[in-house]
């Protein structure tokens, strides 16, 4: 019966049973009603040696077909420096639990403090928590923050230009929590400000959610939004791609009260959708409504600088049903991932990533237009993602690209394709992608 993850010998088991005063392992379950005791064999594979497991996954992996990615829609193919995976694999980080004992968890607490600091730098908002699950759930929690902060208001507006995978989660959370969620119309690919103003007039709105860049990759101009929203005593929530904030106007600069989004763009592998890392930042006056773990700096009894989980009275383990969120585990190791990424890149590196993505995306945009088979879906500024209308059959086009190892052009509306280009894409790859159109 000896198995490598169980250190028990037969003699150990015997000795332990004696100490406990029972005759067998079965007797440890004697209080359980006989009718629910599982007496069969699980219908599962038999145990495999390490070699067999490896072979199994190698074979399984062959059923996947990694492609060169020219698509985004919420997950972007940015470059991951090799240092990061090495460092986050250190078992002191990897195999620790939540830092509830600060004296032996300064490693985790310190990197969370650094994570909070860096995300706050990007968003231009003072307070950031220790991470959320992903961008969509972070946005849903931002919605709850608005409802909890603005007394006696239960309505939140969300722009139709917010990415649909964020929209779906926000809608689900709103429905069960009992938030009245209303959409703001889209106008020429952007949030219709007039429609927002009209919907704010009722005076019952707690918050407004918009996105930058939006679901078409457009960098929306939010001039006047904060003033309009604040005049109605509501909060302005901006879902923003943190990588782009090295060059784009920050949520803080737009006058937003809360910023949220997905840190996946900070060099995280695509990983078939996860784990990524949600982030949530806010103005200082909202910090007590910020959900989840927050790390603060303090001193120990000897006066040494140290870090600790703070403002815990907001959280579920103390507040139970009165807590402002149910979040417990977050995506801590992924917060470390992006913290190391941001340390390596610094402000200059993050700017260059955006510069390369911008150049590649605009080159592809021009090349696609030059084929004569594409026309602009919108005439608006963009960074690394854009939508074009095509006169070709989208399915045929996608199929052609797939056969040649590309994942490009997600169809977001009839005949409208969404492309994304990151710093990983070379000019040769772009040229090849475009050349394939002629073969369709």
């Amino acid at each position: 019966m000896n198995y490598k993850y169980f250190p028990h010998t037969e003699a150990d088991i015997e000795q332990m049973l004696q100490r406990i005063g029972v005759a067998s392992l079965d007797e440890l379950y004697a209080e359980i009603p006989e009718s629910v005791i599982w007496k069969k064999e699980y219908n599962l594979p038999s145990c495999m040696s390490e070699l067999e497991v490896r072979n199994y996954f190698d074979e399984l992996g062959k059923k996947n077909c990694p492609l060169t990615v020219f698509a985004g829609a919420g997950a972007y193919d940015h470059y991951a420096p090799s240092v990061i995976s090495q460092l986050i694999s250190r078992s002191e980080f990897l195999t620790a639990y939540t830092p509830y004992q600060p004296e032996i968890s300064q490693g985790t607490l310190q990197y969370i403090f650094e994570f909070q600091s860096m995300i706050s730098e990007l968003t231009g908002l003072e307070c950031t928590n220790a991470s959320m699950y992903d961008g969509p759930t972070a946005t849903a929690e931002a919605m709850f923050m608005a409802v909890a902060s603005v007394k006696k208001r239960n309505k939140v507006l969300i722009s139709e230009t917010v990415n649909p995978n964020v929209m779906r989660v926000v809608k689900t959370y709103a429905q069960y929590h009992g938030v009245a969620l209303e959409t703001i119309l889209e106008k020429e690919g952007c949030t219709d400000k007039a429609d927002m103003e009209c919907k704010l007039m009722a005076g019952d709105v707690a918050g407004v959610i918009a996105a930058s860049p939006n679901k078409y990759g457009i960098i929306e101009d939010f001039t006047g939004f904060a003033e309009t929203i604040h005049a109605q005593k509501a909060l302005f929530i901006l879902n923003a791609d943190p990588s782009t904030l090295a060059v784009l106007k920050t949520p803080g600069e737009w006058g937003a009260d809360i910023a949220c989004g997905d840190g996946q763009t900070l060099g995280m592998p695509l990983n078939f959708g996860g784990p990524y890392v949600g982030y949530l930042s806010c103005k200082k006056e909202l910090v007590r409504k910020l959900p989840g773990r927050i790390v603060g700096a303090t001193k120990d009894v000897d006066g040494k600088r140290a870090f600790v989980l703070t403002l815990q009275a907001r959280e579920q383990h103390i507040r139970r049903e009165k807590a402002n969120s149910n979040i417990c585990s977050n995506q801590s190791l992924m917060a470390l991932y992006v913290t190391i990424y941001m340390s390596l890149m610094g402000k200059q590196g993050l700017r260059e990533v955006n510069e390369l993505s911008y150049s590649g995306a605009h080159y592809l945009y021009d090349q696609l237009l030059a084929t004569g088979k594409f026309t602009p879906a919108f005439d608006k500024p963009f960074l690394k993602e854009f939508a074009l209308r095509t006169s070709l059959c989208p399915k045929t086009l996608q199929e052609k690209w797939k056969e040649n190892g590309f994942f490009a052009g997600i169809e977001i509306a009839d005949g409208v394709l969404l492309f994304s280009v990151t710093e990983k894409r070379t000019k040769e790859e772009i040229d090849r992608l475009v050349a394939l159109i002629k073969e369709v």
Partner: protein
Amino acid sequence: MSTIVEGLRYAESHEWVKVESEYAYVGITDYAQNALGNIVYVDMPEVDDEVFKDEEFGAVESVKAASDLISPVSGVVVEINEKLEEAPELLNQDAFGNWIMKVKLTDISELDSLLDAKTYEAMCE
């Protein structure tokens, strides 16, 4: 252990009330601050907020605990004790000397259902 002040009215949820004509000052008792430990934050209502008897009007937090503040009276908040925003520890130092909110009462008869010092003291034992 904890002190009780004569002449105030008390709620079972450990708030005290001091009535001055149509106004009431509301705070937490010494027993309550003792039970909570080091208070780090007082979540207070805003001026002009309506409060209702037996309903929550805020919360007090220590490092590892939090307790809702239950209003012993109904009325409109006319003032809050802003000192507590910067120095919540005042509640630990002198719970009876530091009120949390001043309320313009809408129903003075509600006071009758509150406890007197003796009854409250007995309850805390």
